[in-house]
């Protein structure tokens, strides 16, 4: 049991405070496997954090019902970082030092992850990322205790680019959010367009928090392109799609986006119709494991699983595979086991790569359309690419061919 006590010294003296964390407790038995999960539950990234939390809780519940992992119950220690890197470091330290977690999930934003990873060695903690897309995490900022189970930014951009090589579009524009992820992905895209011998007519970056995209829409129209690559997320993405729909931009220009997710579709409704793009996970993936997962998920949450819920579940399964192989959660034993972990996940065959701890996996291109069984438009898979196609060379963010 976690105690809850407060010790207060005189006015300015130190305050040592321990509060009851948000912990899922499980029945007695062995020492539980404690996994810390600092992530944004409030603030603009809160939506994604909530998805990740659901994914992890679902996995833990499923596993604990079957007797736990290597016979031990799983205990998740979830903390809210509000999407702020400084708070994330503090909360990560909290779950490591106060709650004795040496396994970490969570950290929605790449900026949060980048701030935490330098400390993983000191904390002797392993972090299995389910969402961070920044190429540098398996590149220049790589640390041995970091593992990425999800599709990265360069990978999803590569998926789009490979699909575009065969598509009829010739001239492109690119619009991205003006920060690391936007620049990273558009940089890769630029490279890819050149290799495909097509034309990137222009690039523009919008500040985070842009509410009115009319100027950017004008630029895209004026450029005379037939497709536009978008690297936007959250509110900015929703605002752009709503407004592009207003101007009927989609009639002239095929909008291609980095991440297509159900939340965004429900926020913008018909404005999402016709949108094409890469997705990291979609509930329509056709394999028995995914079908079972979707059915079980619907039973539990009465909703279809979205991108980050699926990705988190896969990340949990990767960690599980590593722990089962190592029969231990000790970092030094777990690391080599994770480096060679491979699973048949809800997305097909996924194998961790030892050289940069990136999980090699296939990518999906989807297009949003109306389907009779579902009330709202859904992403339908229009192309699939293999892991070898889309995963960059070790520690790289760009591709050779």
């Amino acid at each position, binding site marked *: 049991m976690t105690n809850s006590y407060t010790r207060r*010294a*005189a*006015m*300015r*003296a*130190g*305050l*040592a*405070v321990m*509060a*009851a*964390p*948000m912990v899922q407790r499980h029945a007695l038995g062995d020492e539980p496997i404690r996994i810390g999960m600092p992530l944004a*539950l*409030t603030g603009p990234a809160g939506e994604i954090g909530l998805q990740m939390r659901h994914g992890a809780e679902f996995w833990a519940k499923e596993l604990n019902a079957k007797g736990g992992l290597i016979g031990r119950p799983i205990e998740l220690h979830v*903390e*809210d970082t*509000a999407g*702020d*890197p*400084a*708070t994330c*470091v*503090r*909360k990560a*330290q*909290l779950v490591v*030092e*106060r709650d004795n977690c040496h396994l970490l999930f969570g950290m929605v934003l*790449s*900026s949060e992850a*980048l*701030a935490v*990873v*330098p*400390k993983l060695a000191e904390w002797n903690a392993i972090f299995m990322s389910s969402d961070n897309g920044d190429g540098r995490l398996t590149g220049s*900022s790589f640390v041995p205790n970091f593992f990425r189970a999800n599709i990265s930014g360069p990978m999803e951009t590569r998926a789009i680019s490979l699909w575009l090589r065969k598509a009829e579009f010739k001239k492109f524009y690119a619009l991205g959010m*003006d*920060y*690391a992820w936007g620049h990273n992905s558009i940089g890769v895209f630029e490279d890819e367009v050149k290799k495909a011998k097509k034309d990137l007519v222009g690039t523009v970056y919008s500040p*985070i928090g842009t509410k009115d995209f009319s100027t950017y829409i004008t630029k895209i129209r004026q450029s005379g392109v037939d497709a536009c690559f978008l690297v936007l997320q959250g509110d900015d993405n929703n605002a752009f799609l709503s407004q592009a729909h207003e101007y009927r931009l989609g009639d002239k220009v095929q909008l291609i986006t980095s991440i297509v997710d159900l939340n965004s579709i429900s926020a913008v409704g018909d404005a999402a119709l016709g949108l094409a793009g890469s997705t990291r996970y979609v509930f329509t993936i056709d394999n028995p494991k995914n079908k079972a997962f979707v059915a079980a998920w619907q039973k539990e949450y009465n909703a279809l699983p979205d991108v980050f819920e699926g990705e988190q579940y896969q990340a949990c399964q990767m960690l599980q595979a590593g722990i089962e192989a190592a029969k231990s959660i000790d970092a030094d034993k777990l690391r080599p086991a994770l480096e060679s972990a491979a699973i048949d996940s809800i997305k097909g065959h996924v194998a961790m790569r030892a050289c940069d701890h990136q999980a090699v996996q296939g990518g999906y291109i989807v297009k949003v359309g109306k389907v009779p069984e579902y009330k709202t438009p859904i992403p339908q898979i229009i192309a699939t690419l293999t892991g070898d196609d889309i995963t960059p060379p070790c520690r790289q963010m760009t591709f050779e061919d």
Partner: protein
Amino acid sequence: MRILAVVVCVLALAPAGLPPYAMTLLTEALILGLFAMSLDLMVGYTRLLSFGHAAAYGLGAYAAGNLLLHTSIPLVFTILLAALCSGVVAIGVAWVCTLASGVSFSMLTLAFAQLLYAVAFKWTAVTGASDGLAGIPRSPGPFGITFFEGRAGFYYLVLACLVAAFIFCRSLVRSPFGAVLRGIRENEAKTLSLGYNTRRYKIAVVAISFTLGGLAGALYAPFAGFTNTELLFWLFSGQVLIMVIVGGTGTLIGPIIGAAFFMLVSNLLSSWTDSWALFFGAIFILFVLFAPQGIWGLATRWRSLSSTG
């Protein structure tokens, strides 16, 4: 003075009694305390309400971060140098902002801070843009002392800086310079008519305030090991202003307590519930309604009540 000595002694014993995570929280609380106290010089003693004090912190943090990452200047000197950088930039900023007064002054500070944020956000080479600087090391202190690199050692460095800054500020506000500041606070026109160049005093207090705020930022960079643009954002400026008000303006000690209170309560609450913002906001509203002099005001009232009782 005696109480101060007692409190400092208790704080000095903290590493022996507190678990590591609590030590980290305490160190950060002291850093924020220094930051809040620096703002009090402007807000509490001169009635210069700044909505852009995050600029001081950010400047100090980025300067220290760059120095620690790219040079081998010893830790203690790096921190002092970074604080000085912040103070020097402040002179220019203050020169422009003091062209106005009252609400307009506050708005100018906001404008500057946001501009600095915008610049930092785009200037990848120096600030790492939206990612900030990561992996900032704690380089060895002067004369090869490695004491400050450890958790307890760094804590003592922070404590020493806070105590030194506090003593400095207290002497400052009790000096003739401080008297002029209070004159500006109470009635600037009259102080001006008495022959004081109030604008110069204002510029000076902003520069001092920024230097100390920059010191706090410079301590933060090696403490957390990273800096990012959130440290320059207007929300952070708002938060430190709240810390000062909650603690009690114009008291120097109040803001330090306010900062510790703010940090610890927000940490506690966010661990306890997703709806921490609700309770946090409610606490502020209650404070305003029932404890207008802030925490320090409550404490002094309680002390005077119990001593007369």
